């Protein structure tokens, strides 16, 4: 009996390794992240919504890239985990997933991480048997809490499609948050800036690329950002010419995306050098406790025209 159990354990371990895969430059964190993304895939393949949802953070939002990697084209798909769960139940009842997932890149910074995936295979309509072949690129952000990585956001249907038309800066609340962020920078008021950011926000440097795999994680949460501001603001005065190009708020007013284009210049307290740059910034915001907080900040995405 005992030897049967031992064999079973070995078989389970082997199955876990095979399903997760071991890659070069792997770390314990990337293995755990692969497990989280693997669980999401397994849940879809088994039609098990509970298993899928176990990989998702309670504060979850999803975005639709509409076939583009340019954040100016992105829209909000799900504003919350509940909205995603409701969709998932229907989806898994209606469709059978026969898909595989490759994970080209994972980047970890303290308790936040990003990953890109490519899902390929087919989705079969359970009723009609109709088959839809897919090859879909996604960009994920994850948060580690209680020793587990969970998905906080996913941007689906990334691709090389042409940029969608701008939807304009129509939301005054989002505009006000971004204006306050700019004012905080210009006045050197770190506390005012920090108040606008969620505790577990992620900051990226897009490095003038539209390839999410090239985006570099630069801030992991508000605590690190606070240390940065405390170190930076006494030495540098910012001047930001910020144009809010578009804002988009979900129907439940829980999630928002904004894109700004800005010229940032600095003057240093210790010298005469001036530094300046033009950049696009994508912001995602969530309204959880009555006020909007920045959850993601992507500097320097794409190449300013």
């Amino acid at each position, binding site marked *: 009996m005992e030897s049967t159990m031992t064999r079973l354990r070995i078989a389970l371990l082997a199955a876990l390794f095979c399903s997760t895969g071991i890659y070069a430059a792997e770390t314990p964190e990337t293995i755990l992240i692969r497990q989280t993304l693997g669980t999401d895939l397994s849940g879809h393949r088994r039609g098990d919504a509970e298993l899928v949802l176990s990989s998702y953070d309670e504060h979850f939002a999803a975005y639709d890239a509409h076939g583009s990697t340019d954040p100016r084209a992105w829209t909000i798909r799900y504003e919350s985990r509940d909205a995603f769960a409701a969709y998932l139940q229907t989806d898994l009842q209606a469709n059978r997933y026969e898909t595989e997932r490759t994970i080209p890149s994972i980047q970890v910074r303290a308790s936040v991480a990003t990953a890109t995936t490519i899902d390929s295979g087919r989705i079969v309509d359970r009723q009609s048997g109709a088959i839809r072949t897919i090859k879909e690129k996604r960009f994920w952000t994850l948060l580690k809490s209680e020793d587990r990585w969970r998905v906080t956001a996913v941007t689906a249907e990334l691709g090389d499609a042409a940029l969608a038309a701008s939807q304009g800066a129509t939301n005054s609340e989002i505009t006000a948050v971004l204006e306050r962020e700019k004012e905080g920078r210009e006045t050197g008021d770190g506390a005012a800036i920090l108040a606008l950011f969620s505790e577990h926000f992620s900051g990226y440097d897009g490095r003038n690329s539209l390839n999410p795999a090239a985006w570099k994680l630069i801030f992991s949460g508000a605590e690190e950002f606070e240390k940065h501001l405390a170190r930076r603001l006494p*030495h540098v005065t910012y001047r930001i010419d910020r144009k809010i190009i578009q804002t988009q708020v979900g129907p439940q007013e829980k999630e928002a995306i904004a894109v700004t284009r800005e010229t940032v210049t600095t003057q240093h307290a210790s010298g005469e050098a001036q530094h300046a740059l033009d950049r696009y910034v994508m912001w995602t915001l969530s309204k959880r406790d009555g006020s909007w907080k920045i959850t993601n900040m992507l500097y320097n995405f794409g190449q300013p025209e």
Partner: protein
Amino acid sequence: MRASIAALFLVFFASACSTTEQKITEHVEQMAANPIDSAAWQQAIDGLVVIGRPAARQLIALLNPDLYVGEAYREFRGEQEKLRTGSARALGRIKPRGATGPLRDRISVAYTDVERIAGIWALGEMGFVQAGVDALKAQLKNDKNPVIRLHAAIGLLKMDDNSGNEEIAQALSGPDQVLAQIALDGLRESKHFGIPLGTRLARANGPRQSDLKLVLDEVSKGLINQLDAEDPELRRRAALALGQIGTSGGIDALSAKLSDASNQVRFSAAAALASMEQKAGIDFLFDAIRAPDPILRTNAVKFLSDVQKASGAVEDQLVAALTSDNTLSRAGAAQVLGQAKVASAIAALEKATTDSEAQVRANAAIALGHIGQPSSRPQLEALLRDSDITVAYYAEWALTQLGKS
């Protein structure tokens, strides 16, 4: 009481550390805040160099692009360039252990030319480290930018590696004034390492001979000071370099080094003086060639050979020494004439094959073998029947060398 003293010491130590950290931060911010090569930027580097090794860890970190995230995030590439360039310049002056690897990683095309040049310069200043030599050789071989190649060549020269000498020579003979100025500055900074190349180029025909001579004059002043360096190796190299330049300005300082504590420094100073045909140096070496101590004699032979090969300044004295009353002088002179392949001494060496002392006959045979003139065959064949088997052995060897050179 002891506890109070310990507590006071701890407080003092902690405050000293925090003051140093604070100063480093201030200098780093000043570096980030001022244009490269501006007075304020340079002043920040000078401040960091004064702090020295305690600042090195942070300077090495500032070279790394991965530093500029999180708490230390700086969004401007230009700001990073100021810090990376300044850190490399400071590290080149502080010369901390362990900086070669991080510097080597910042000289690729992923970095700006200003950053790369500062990194290459710093690698050169670090002195010989195999990893640094390999990295600079790769730039010298593969980089398309002649400025980078030239800086790599200068860096190698400072590491006592001559693989880039032709790159420097080309810069000095070519029409590009910018490259020529970099080469001149590089030779100036290379101190004794650049002297063999500098003197060779200064003696040849070329468009910048007067500039080169000015550089050599300037370097020789530095070398005279270097004769008083604590490190005997630096004193030795300075003495030899002064001999190569041949400037009369160094004669007094070199003469003073004939009584240096280091054997190698004394001989190098003597050789330098001898190549300038200074009696004090020549006498020193000829005294040493007949010294009872075999180490001194070996040194004398080596340095006299070098002097003779480089300048021919001791040829007459060597030939005259073959007829000295002192056996060691005759034997040593034969050895030097052979090593320096002095063809004009063949007749005197052939005569020495009949010397009464076997040691002299053997050395004369070896010398004739080195020179390799076929006309020496009868004298060497006569030695095959020498009563001393060592002499006969070397005569046989020398006969196999005739006509080869």
